[in-house]
């Protein structure tokens, strides 16, 4: 059975905030099923007692010295924003109109 359906791909698209037309979702579904068939092969290996790897070169967690600095000025931090006002990012309405 195929891993992905068109409906599922559209739903995933919504969750990751990527608008998809039916045609795009259908095309993606086919590609994803080909990939899914291949990557499922990893389950052939016996990994029951094997710990997972997150960082291949493990380091002891460390923090740098807590020294005050201004890496970016307000103007610099806002310089790439699509819309700003009074030194702040301007976003479209977050809550619905209802």
């Amino acid at each position, binding site marked *: 059975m195929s891993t*992905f359906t068109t409906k599922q*791909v559209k739903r*995933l*698209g*919504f*969750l*990751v*905030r*990527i*608008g*998809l037309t039916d045609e*795009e979702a259908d095309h*993606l579904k086919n*590609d*994803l099923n*080909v*990939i*899914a068939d*291949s*990557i*499922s*092969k*990893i*389950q*052939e*290996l016996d*990994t029951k007692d*094997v*710990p*997972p*790897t*997150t*960082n*291949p*070169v493990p*380091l002891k*967690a*460390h923090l*740098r*010295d807590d020294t005050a600095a201004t*890496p*970016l000025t307000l103007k*610099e*931090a806002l*310089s*790439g*924003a*699509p*819309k*700003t006002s009074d030194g702040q*990012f301007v*976003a*479209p*309405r*977050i809550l*619905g*109109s209802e």
Partner: protein
Amino acid sequence: MLRRRLTVSLSRLEFWEASDMSAENEIVKLSAAQMAQKLASGEVSSRELTQAEINVIAAAEPSIKAFLTVSASRALKEADESDARRAKGEKMPALAGVPIAIKDMIVTKGIETTAASKILKGWIPPYDATVIRKIRAAGMPLLGKTNLDEFAQGSSTEHSAFFPTHNPWDTTRVPGGSGGGSASAVAAFEAPLALGTDTGGSIRQPGAFTGTVGVKPTYGGVSRFGAIAMASSMDQIGPVSRTVLDAALLQELIGGYDANDSTSLPDAVPPVVAAAREGQKMDLHGVRVGIIKQALGEGISDPVRTNFEHTVSLLKSMGAQVSEVDMPALPYSLDAYYVLMPSEVSSNLARYDGMRYGIRVMPPADQEQSAQNMMLATREAGFGPEVKRRIILGTYALSAGFYDKWYGSAQRVRTLIIREFNQAFKSVDVLVSPTSPISAFKIGSEVSGNPMTMYMNDIATIPANLAGIPAISVPMGLANGLPTGFQIMAPQKRDDLMYKPAAAVEAALKQESCADMLSSLKTPWVDQAAHGSDVAATDADQINKAEEAAVEAKAVGARSTREEK
């Protein structure tokens, strides 16, 4: 010797008639180490060198298309500053004054940085990556930003949102990817050096396809601060060059601990320059080389196999002890990678939401003008198909109910692969394989169709990223007129171990054919640049810009207007 061109009244044509016609042709074809020597001795200035590269870029770009942004005006200014520092008697770093190109995956303060994605078109970063700070401090002029597959996702540079880059050996073929722009620029003599990023082979596979040297250092060996994140547990910045020594010089400059990167290694940079010089002596007695049995399976093209076997015989003739190494879990690398990488991509690319930087596309007028709909519209218009595919796949792999089946399994397979490498390095110093199973393919031949076909390109390079070990690709000769690459891998933090045999292979192949492989590359653009007049920096700054603007207007303009500040 290139005479200093200080007499502005003398036209360029008169100058070339009055001196050696091929002087500029020769200078851009030097290695970075040779350029550095000429700069140190005062034979050439950084401005002359940088202008010569700008002239080549202007002549080459119509057919190569390696650059997304050419920063010629700034580069000349930086060259003048470098020359001024030297004139004052300041002690300069080894590569001072040598120009460099940067993959557009690395942020550069004041220079547009896009990751070859429409979603970042027009973004001017307010800060420099750590590697860029080091390059600027060393007085290296920054020629521009090179093309790549969007967000470094691809193996051909055809997935750039703007245009594909062409392979200088055959412009109907791809240069590999994702760092095809950096590799092509260096192969075509548009730049002596470049930086790339390597998550699954994006420096090494383009190196193999273009006849250049590409290095992925040990994970954490070079700061990732300012490298646009793709898959953070595997991303690594590294050098692209025409010689092994040049790569070593650049790695020593950019490597080392950085407090801004929590995965940065506290260790000193391994002595890679000394190792490269040692390798040039072509004596490999005492070096134990392992051939990975599983890396020579099906899918390796005959010419690649032939060149690989010949290179191994050269290693033996220089005294290396060669044996075969069995790594049964290795064939699962590709599949584990295509779970882990998209999972990390889906998380890292969540930041492009049209809020703080990058483009914002508002939804059509008949839809609610909400933040949610803006994000849907922005990410739909801003991301290309390959990026969308990976974000969706990664999100699925991380979702409740499937996490253990895919992501968890892949993480455990990763552990098995690391164990196999650790075991192998108990009996050998380095492991070798072809860098890519094939040589450069035709543009357009793998874009549509089965996505796994393109992913297979990285089958030999991915294991090093999973294991965090260093790996280098060196040219191993031509096959049907196209370059092929030889990969050498070393244990973590022992990058020096691979530089020695890499430099030895390079020297042995050069001795065998009495010339560098790149000297057989036909470069009409270099001759054109040598015979033309100096290209104005302001003109060079506009190279490829009209094409990018057209792509942006089509994608973003068609859906909705971009909100103005």
